[in-house]
């Protein structure tokens, strides 16, 4: 043990100084979800299979759907990605999702703008 210990004095510490250095997530990583509204057919299988009820699909027009994802409810199991028959959902590598404002944890993917908008906190 002593030899091993004295050797490590000369070694660089293995600590990774997060947040200054960040690690790359592996390809299969299950991070924040991404929703592609144009692919969605509104079958709501993802809603049915989600263990925590974190995802909601709303109909906002003729063949147009939006997804509301509660990031604080999501357990990042990516079952919805598997359940989706049209591959409208996708898990990204994004992990840094901590927020002080709880309202920002509710992400709405809107078909109209085709862009992610973050709804302001509402009480």
């Amino acid at each position: 043990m002593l030899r091993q210990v004295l050797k490590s004095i000369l070694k660089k510490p293995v600590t990774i100084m997060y947040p200054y250095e960040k690690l790359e997530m592996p390809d299969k990583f299950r991070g924040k979800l991404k929703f592609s509204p144009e692919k969605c057919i509104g079958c709501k299988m993802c809603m049915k299979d989600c263990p925590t009820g974190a995802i909601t699909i709303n109909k906002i027009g003729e063949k147009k759907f939006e997804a509301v994802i509660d990031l604080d409810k999501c357990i990042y199991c990516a079952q919805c990605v598997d359940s989706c028959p049209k591959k409208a959902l996708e898990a990204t590598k994004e992990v840094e999702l901590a927020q002080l404002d709880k309202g920002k944890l509710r992400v709405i993917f809107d078909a109209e703008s085709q862009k992610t908008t973050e709804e302001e906190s509402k009480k």
Partner: protein
Amino acid sequence: MADPRKFKIPIGPQHPALKEPESFSVALKGEKIKGLDIRLGYNHRGIEKACEGKTFIQDVYLLERICGICSHSHSTCFVQAVEEIAGLAVPRRALYIRTLVAELERVHSHYLWLGVAGHEIGFDTLLMYTWRDREAIMDVLALLTGNRVNYGINCLGGVRRDIDATQIKEVIKAIDELEERTKYYIEVATQEVTIIERLSGVGILSHEDALRLGAVGPTGRASGVNRDVRRDDAYAAYAELKFDVITDDHCDVYGRTLVRVKELLQSFSIIRQVLKNLPDGPIAVRAPRKIPAGEAFNRYEAPRGEDVHYVKANGTEFPERVKVRAPTLANIRSVKQMLKDRYLADMPIVIAAIDPCFSCTDRLISVKHDNKEKEVMEWQALRSYSIDWYSKRGVDFTELNKKLEEKFKHK
């Protein structure tokens, strides 16, 4: 207080030695332990009941979260039970991938235990080193499954993620490195004077006591109980793999340490075999949403011992009953025996030596007295029932049973 040297101190529910809330009330005389009261139930989360309100697909993720360390154990055990009810033929490739993740999990769990044990005896350097090396396994698991804990690799009928050649290379690289380190830790555990001083002769659980109290996993195997579900009731791909069941006759914490570090080497060999013989083919079959009525009972060798799931389905999407018995529940009773007349200083390491996971353990059973149609089963009847149940499925216990009876006649 009549005798000022005699007093009771609470270890827990909140205590630095325990990583989860659990209450041990210790009666002390000086530094010696004279009595011990264990109270479970501070971590009850109602998971079994919650399972009944969710579909089978959702339950896989819920049960995976019973334990943060042996999460794959619980989900595999449940999935296997459901597959048995539904009569699904899981592809071989899926079984191999499950086995791979299971063994990687065992490696990470045993490494974690080694660090915790080091910390409990005040050897923080061991903690830092083992946990540093454990990172390699965590990274491999993230690479294969998509997350460091709660892998989410299982689904009904197979696994969710396939592995490819580059990943196999990564795994083998990590395994090679870790095997080297494991050999070093075996050296440390068997040669460091202070470690041996603190571990050997501590928390003695004799072979008879281990059988009587039903110790499972490394706790039992360190007392010479030669049992391992992987061999005795082979599931997943274990029937096709070659490995030894490590036992030890030290009967103390030192023996448990040896069993665990040697099991690491076995795990590495299993992982190598799995990667070498990985069959081709699909990774999952389609599972029905509605599981036909029926019940199943599944055993699984988790890193901490035998994990048991019972599932009853009634033909809908929701299970009627899910029962989980985590290995810690089987082992916790032996702690009292181990701590008899020991020093207070041995308490943390003896508790840690069974590798307790209290939140897995906490289950609630309420017995209703007004049920008229109850059937009372005596211990003997229950045992012969279980032996029958297993012999129907081709597991023979008559040999083992004879041995057991002889042992107790002796007493």
